């Protein structure tokens, strides 16, 4: 120890206190680094541990009575400790910054999101736009998001070359030239009394591919179902054909029996009653065969309607031409018969009007008859019974609309789209 006396002792004491404080702060920074997790924090922890070790070594060294030249070691020591202290302050502030949520930390973290985010005022002035949303904005409008409303309007328009716009549940979807599809959803958020616009962009490429796959599968399923329904209809006629064949076999058998009976009659004359019975059998068989020859295509539904009207004494005034589409013809016939039944049952009507209009997209059919005075209940709604509700069901199954009204006239109006569904 040199002979500087009291001054040397004071400097040493101050250095020792400073050294102890330094050691204590090292310990504090180590604990702080331990409490914070993450890869970057590991680096901070290692640095803090290094500083703590050096500080501890200095403290042990100087308190252990190591004899050192006063001015050289004891004057340089505070400088070294000051450097260590500033490093620790840096470390501490870095740790503190990582634990606090600031505008920058939010921006930094949202930039890492796989989705695009934009928060703005109602007038579109952005509060926060993450990197992904800005990137999308560049692809849509060649600039970052300057105004959220204008940006969303451009998304809605989707008229940029190379970008294909579709929509799902009212949400715009943009497919970019790289094949990726993004959905853009705009929402109004309310927070602390303030209204904020939020635009979220989500990469829905995989979802869209799955939906497309499902759509294709559903189309195939619909085709199969349609074929099944068509088959169902043809099975009905197959059953009829089978019945017909059975009947023909029966006629064939009857002819065979008649021939046998007639042949028997040649050998054994038999009585008059027997001859008459055989004659009757032949007549019946011939009548049947004559009819068999007459049978051609089944009658059109309109014939049933007009025949029935004629037989029950109701004049049908038909205006317009009957469309050729079988399902529409059948529907007109079914509606006409329903009107006829109602006209006879409720109104004792003797006349029935049918107007068919061939419009651009639809067939418009109007059926009406006069209502007898005592049956008039004023205009308004009609309670639909089994017949009318059955007809309504049929119309709706074919994709049409039916309205029923009553007053001076009882009226059914049917609007049937052209190319609507066929009967099931």
């Amino acid at each position, binding site marked *: 120890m040199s002979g500087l006396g009291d001054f040397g002792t004071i400097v040493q004491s101050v250095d020792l206190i400073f050294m102890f404080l330094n050691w204590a702060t090292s310990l504090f920074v180590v604990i702080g680094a331990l409490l914070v997790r993450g890869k970057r924090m590991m680096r901070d922890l290692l640095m803090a541990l290094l500083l703590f070790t050096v500080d501890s070594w200095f403290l042990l060294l100087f308190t252990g009575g190591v004899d050192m030249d006063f001015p050289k070691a004891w004057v340089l020591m505070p400088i070294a400790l000051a450097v260590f202290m500033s490093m620790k302050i840096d470390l501490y502030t870095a740790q503190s910054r990582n634990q606090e949520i600031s505008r920058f930390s939010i921006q930094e973290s949202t930039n890492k999101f796989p989705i695009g985010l934009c928060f703005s005022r109602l007038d579109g002035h952005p509060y926060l736009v993450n990197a992904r949303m800005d990137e999308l904005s560049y692809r849509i409008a060649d600039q970052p998001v300057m105004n959220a409303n204008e940006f969303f309007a451009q998304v809605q328009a989707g008229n940029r070359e190379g970008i294909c716009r579709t929509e799902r549940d009212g949400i715009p979807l943009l497919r970019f030239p790289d094949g990726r599809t993004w959905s853009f959803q705009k929402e109004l958020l309310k927070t602390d009394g303030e209204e904020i616009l939020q635009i979220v962009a989500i990469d829905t490429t995989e979802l869209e591919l799955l939906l497309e796959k499902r759509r294709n599968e559903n189309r195939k*399923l619909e085709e*199969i*179902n*349609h074929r*099944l*329904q068509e*088959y*169902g209809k043809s*099975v*009905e006629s*197959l*059953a*009829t054909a*089978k*019945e*017909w064949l*059975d*009947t*023909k*076999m*029966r006629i064939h*058998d009857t002819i065979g029996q008649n021939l046998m009976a007639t042949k028997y009659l040649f050998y054994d004359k038999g009585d008059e009653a027997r001859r008459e019975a055989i004659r009757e059998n032949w007549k*019946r068989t011939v*009548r*049947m065969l004559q*009819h*068999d020859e007459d*049978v051609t295509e*089944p*009658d059109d*539904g309109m014939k*049933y*309607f007009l*025949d*029935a009207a004629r*037989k*029950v*004494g109701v004049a049908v005034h038909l205006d317009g031409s009957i469309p050729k589409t079988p399902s529409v013809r*059948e529907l007109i*016939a*079914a509606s006409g*018969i*329903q009107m*006829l*039944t109602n006209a*006879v*049952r409720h109104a004792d009507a003797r006349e029935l009007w049918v107007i068919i209009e061939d419009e651009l997209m639809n067939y418009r059919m109007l059926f009406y008859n006069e209502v007898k005075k005592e049956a008039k209940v004023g205009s308004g709604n009609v309670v639909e019974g*089994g*017949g009318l509700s*059955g007809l309504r069901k*049929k119309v709706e199954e074919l994709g049409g609309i039916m309205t029923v009204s009553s007053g001076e006239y009882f009226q059914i109006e049917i609007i049937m789209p052209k190319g609507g569904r066929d*009967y*099931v």
Partner: protein
Amino acid sequence: MYNVMIVEDDPMARRLLEIMVTSDESYHLAVSVESASVAEVYCMTEAIDLILMDVCTALHASGLDAAIKIKKRFPQIRIIIITSLPECSFIERAREGGVDSFWYKDPFENKLLDIMNRTMMGESIYPDQSPTSNMGLATSSEFTERELDVLRELISGDTDEMIAERLNLSVHTIKKHVKSMFQKTGCTTRTQLAVMALESGIVVRGI
């Protein structure tokens, strides 16, 4: 003499019925039509005593529905349902609707006239059960009532979800019934099952 109305869309079968009716002195053929949809209007204007009603008629009109409606409005008119389809629900629906008699068409037997006579005498004649029909490895009697309900909806070509909604069942239950029918019939797909059901006539939809 009883006035008879025939409702039958198949011309050959209708002609047979007409011949049978006209050949018997007790009956008079008043009306012969193809579609059940016009039957009610004729009942209003003609004095009909007996109707021979087919189930599947022209214009996709259900003879069963028409018969039930006519029975409500004109209870004095006797009705005999005639069909060749083995659909098991027809008998039950006809009974519930108050239809007088039920006959499965058989061109090789002449029983109908006897049934007509007995029906007009006030008797109600119904077969004990619907004819047994084969469907793959199973016969129609092997299916439960619920399975037949599901099968009836299955032939519409609709999805399990739609069928479940119509029958007020869960999709899981529908799948369970379909699986059970696969096991019974030996079918491996729904389409195969539906086609078999349609061909066999065990279930008929929309009638």
